[in-house]
């Protein structure tokens, strides 16, 4: 029974060294945005909650992309 339940959790999945691996950050950012807004909003209404969570999700992604671009530019200047 335990083996059956744990079957998918006993071996790690394969993650290649590709740019697509960065997409694994998206579910985590979504969870952070949703959990944070769930405790932050005074009144939980569907429309407000979805809007606020989406804004937070978008801003985290945007700032991560911006940071990546800046680091890439700095590395290009320094290393060439």
């Amino acid at each position, binding site marked *: 029974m335990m083996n059956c339940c744990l079957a998918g959790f*006993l071996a790690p*999945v394969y*993650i290649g060294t590709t740019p697509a691996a960065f997409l*694994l950050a998206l579910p*985590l950012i979504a*969870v952070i945005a949703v*959990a944070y807004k769930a*405790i932050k909003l005074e009144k939980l209404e569907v429309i407000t909650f979805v809007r606020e969570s989406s804004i937070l999700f978008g801003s985290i992604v945007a700032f991560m992309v911006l940071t990546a671009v800046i680091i890439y530019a700095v590395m290009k200047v320094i290393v060439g």
Partner: protein
Amino acid sequence: MRQTAEKLKLPHLGFLFLAGVLGWWIPGAGHWVIGQPKRAAIIFISLTFAFVLGIYIGSIAVIDLKTPWFWAQILYSPATVYIAHLSGSVYHLDSFGRPREIGEIYTAIAGMLNLLCVVNAVYMAHCINIKEQNE
């Protein structure tokens, strides 16, 4: 079903302790006991999703008693200790490289987010008690 210290016949601190401990044992349960079922459901689903995805990506070997990550992971729930026991003593598993790192990050962030939720549940329980005393 909103519970308060008075309804449960608990002292003020006991009610806060109950909300905190329940929130730690089952993510979202702290909010559920103070009458916030929507928040409780959102917290439970989102944090459990992150935790389960983390152990799916890196296997249950990412829950390792010997790493500092464990102290963040255990904030998700005491059940983490049982998972650590399964991976270390029962199945003798280990994982390496990128899947392990990503799994550790997912599970540890789920734990730290749960700490945030527990603190919020305790604060809300405190506010409810103060409001009730004033009434």
